[in-house]
């Protein structure tokens, strides 16, 4: 039942308000989507168990409010996260610029060596794209993390992104680092961003 899994990983999503963090989580955990934006209040989480490398991984995915007013609440949850997903909106330049700020927040509040992942959400809205892949890919590379462009609306890369991070954590926790590149994600990396796919530095 509730304990029928091998590992429990805690992931945390951060990013500006309105980039689609909650939608990504709902898509991932419940395979659902609602386009109406309701800003998250403070903090919340959802659960989904996935199979990775033959292991059942129970993912507790924490959703945070992007609004500044909830900052004090949300930062308290950084510490417990084993993986943090930074999300921006490809149609919102500002949200991408702020990724640096969020990175800083991670450095200040999260455990050292926490797994990270960069997501450019709303990639279904190509017509409104403001942020190209290249800079994002570059940014991810600089930080040594993976990058995906996702769409909660179309389900693009959502499972792949979460699985990718979970896999990284699993491998890391396994104390066996086969090598950053080795991993993974056949699925994760391929789909969308092969460019980005790259670097998976677990750290």
């Amino acid at each position, binding site marked *: 039942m*509730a*304990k029928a899994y091998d590992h429990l990983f805690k992931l945390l999503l951060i990013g500006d308000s309105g980039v689609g963090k909650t939608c990504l989580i709902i898509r991932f955990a419940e395979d659902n989507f609602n386009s109406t934006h309701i800003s998250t209040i*403070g*903090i919340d989480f959802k659960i989904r168990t996935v199979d990775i490398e033959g292991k059942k991984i129970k993912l*507790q995915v924490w959703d945070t409010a992007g609004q500044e007013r909830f900052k004090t609440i949300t930062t308290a949850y950084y510490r417990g996260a084993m993986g943090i997903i930074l999300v921006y909106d490809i149609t919102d330049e500002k949200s991408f610029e702020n990724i640096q700020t969020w990175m800083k927040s991670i450095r200040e509040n999260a455990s050292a060596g926490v797994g990270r992942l960069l997501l450019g959400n709303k990639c279904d809205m190509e017509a409104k794209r403001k942020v190209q892949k290249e800079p994002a890919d570059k940014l991810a590379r600089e930080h040594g993390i993976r990058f995906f462009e996702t769409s909660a609306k179309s389900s693009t890369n959502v499972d792949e992104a979460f699985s990718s991070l979970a896999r990284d954590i699993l491998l890391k926790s396994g104390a066996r680092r086969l090598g950053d590149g080795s991993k993974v994600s056949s699925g994760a990396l391929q789909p969308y961003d092969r460019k980005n796919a790259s670097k998976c530095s677990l750290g």
Partner: protein
Amino acid sequence: MAAIKALQQWCRQQCEGYRDVDITNMTTSFRDGLAFCAILHRHRPDLINYSALRKENVYENNKLAFCVAEEQLGIPALLDAEDMVALKVPDRLSILTYVSQYYNYFHGRSPIGGMAGIKRPPSDAEEESSGKKAPSVPAKLPMSTPAQALPPSAARTSSVVQRTSGSPKAGQRVASSAVSSTCGVCGKHVHLVQRHLVDGRLYHRSCFRCKQCSSTLRSGAYRATGEPGNFVCTSHHSKATSVNATSLALAAKQPGATPVDSGAPSILQKFQEMNGQAAAAAAPKAQPAAQKSAVGNVTAKGFTRTTSEPPASTFSVRVGSPPGSRLPASPVASRLEHSTTGTHVTNSAPVGWTSSTRGPVTNNSQSAPGVPEPCPAVPQGRGTSRVSAAVTKLGLNSGSLGAVDPQDWTPSASRTQQARERFFQSPAAPSSGPLAKTPFPADSPSRDSSREQALSFIRKALSGVEAAGTQVPGRSSPAMNSCPKTEHPKAVPAGKLSQPDVPHTLSSTSRMEPSARLSVGNTSQSSGLSKMDKSSAVSSQISRAVTDSRLKPEAPMAKGPSTSPQQSQEDGPEGWRARLKPVEKKLLAGRANLVPSPRAKELKEPQVPAEPKAGDALMAPRAPVKASGSPQGGIRITLTPVQPAQTQGHTGPGTRLPAASPSSYPRRRLAIPPTLDVSANWLQSEPSGQKNQAQSWEKPHSQDNPGRPLGPASMPALPEKTMSSPVRLHPDYVPQEEIERQLQDIEKQLDALEHRGVALEQQLRAADGAAEEDDLMVAWFRLVHEKQLLLRLESELMYKSKTQRLEERQLDLEGELRRLMAKPEGLKSPQDRRREQELLNQYVNTVNDRSDIVDILDEDRLREKEEDQVLQDMIQKLDMQKKKPKFRLSKIWGQKSKSCHPE
């Protein structure tokens, strides 16, 4: 012997180097408690200061070890420190079993769960003593009463002595075990496997039932009432706390409700009897009381006097505060307040309401309600402490909620402490609530007796029901159970009922709100209009309206709050709500027509007042129901529509109300069936579309809670509805009924397992030292482990249920929060801001509580993993020693674990 020897060997190794400890056997070597302390200290030196221990302090040493092990390590205290003092030769099997838990914990990192259920009965003192040895009894009794508090060694010693010698002396004991052990409920011998130690009292696990709903109390889902040996489901708790605290209070409320709902026949009858008795006895008193505290009742029925506006105001005031706190709190608070203030209005109001339903036939009936109220008074005492807590909680809504929930989860230790606190507090409360007491002294006794009878009845019925899984009984019980049941599997029916009630209540609340508003607006009008006797009615209406508004908030709170009572409702409610909601809609429609019109009429037409009153009365009952979370609300709701029409005349209303309100029938068995049907219909009949409305209703309540009782709440509710639905729909959502069903399955398996355990224990004791003892021992440990697995499953289900409740609550809180936050910053009053902050805190706490469950489950998972391995190793080791590889444990275990999984 090998297995035992191995365990003994392990103990010796653990205790090596520790002063004054020499393990040479599995009995007297442990008597002074130092061995336990040494083992604990070896692994957790931070928990015990071994150097400070003295060999002479047998009681202290043992108590320390047992407490530390239970509170810090989660190893249930199978043994009782007082027994260790009293028994020159401690019970070997008990020591073995207990020590095996240490072994498992420190080697497997987990206690043999099975033992949890096998806890030794410290409480024996009371029961046993009373039954067995006279001398000690007196002392014991006092001690035992506190159940929570460990009885003095003296008291127990006597009992213990008996035990020690007991095995030989006491016929029963002799037969099965050296350890004295009689069930606190049934008075019969409790075998090791059946042991359920709670607050120092021993019970058969199957006897450990909710005082309210008589459903079996599960770990983490019950709380102590003010009365020793009386426990209630946590769900009932918050609500019940006040109510449950004393079954009387519940009874009072429930009676009306019960009948209405499904009305378990037996229960109903009992209640009726109770009520009748109470009414008879209390009738005279009741009125006085009613006047004082029963204001609510009065108002409902038209006791204009009591209803006097002041009371109403008091209600409103109190209510208002409570709403924030929540239903549970508010009810309690109201009660408390009553007791303290002497204004029983709030409580009385609910009771009165209920009574009104009952009483509809005759005003006397009201007096009866008053009687019930007295009961509340008793509860109040208990509740008082709670109330205070509730009050505080109310003040800190978030805090209160969070606090409540935690309690549920808190370990047994904390629970006991809480229980103790309550216990102590309750006494105080009584004093505070002199009014209630004084008026009802006679009643209270009658109630108690009636309660006991009723309880016993219910239990029997339930037991039967449970076994059968009959919902009907459950329902009947529901009235009783209404509060508590939700959590308990057995309660399921009750839970359903309760849940339905909740929805109803909600619906009623929503309905009420309109009425309330109307009444409010009317109040002035009505007051003016109600020149006649109605003035009182008007006041009552107002008060009702207020109460309604309050109630509503509370109701929402209860749902959202997750507080135990609420939770219980919530649990069930979710599923129920969906069903109920439809009903609610219907009801609402009906209400809208019925209620509104009457009220409207009242407002417009002076004459109408009577109708309004009736409506109010109805409303009021509902409101109470809501507060209490009793099924009545639902029943009433349905009735209400009808009644309103009938209740046009004042006098008529009363009579009509009775007639109209099934509640009056509740006394009658017949009433129950109707309610059942209704509930069933509601649940099933309404389409999903209705659900939305229902949800909205529910949500509104939560919204109301905030402090804005009336308008805002209803408005916001709708949005919340949308929110809430997701919870139910979410992929992993398991209907409360399903959870209950699974819990019942587990219970059956546990029963069967205990049955085997009893036989095995007898064999074990008979085989003392014999060659086959090892085999038996292995079998014993396996059985214990099996029980452990079942208990694990049970706890998982309980967590699941809890989680779902929290999710619902979170939705409710979120809805309310969003409403508040949507308000332009400039327009927010200081109260709005404060409320917003409170809600936010509650919200975050709720999320954290959910997360805590995730963590707890994960810890359990890891522990159990090791635990299973350890146990297997241990058993295999024993077998190896015997050199009789009879058992292939791995296979056995595998099978067991599989078999254990109900689903």
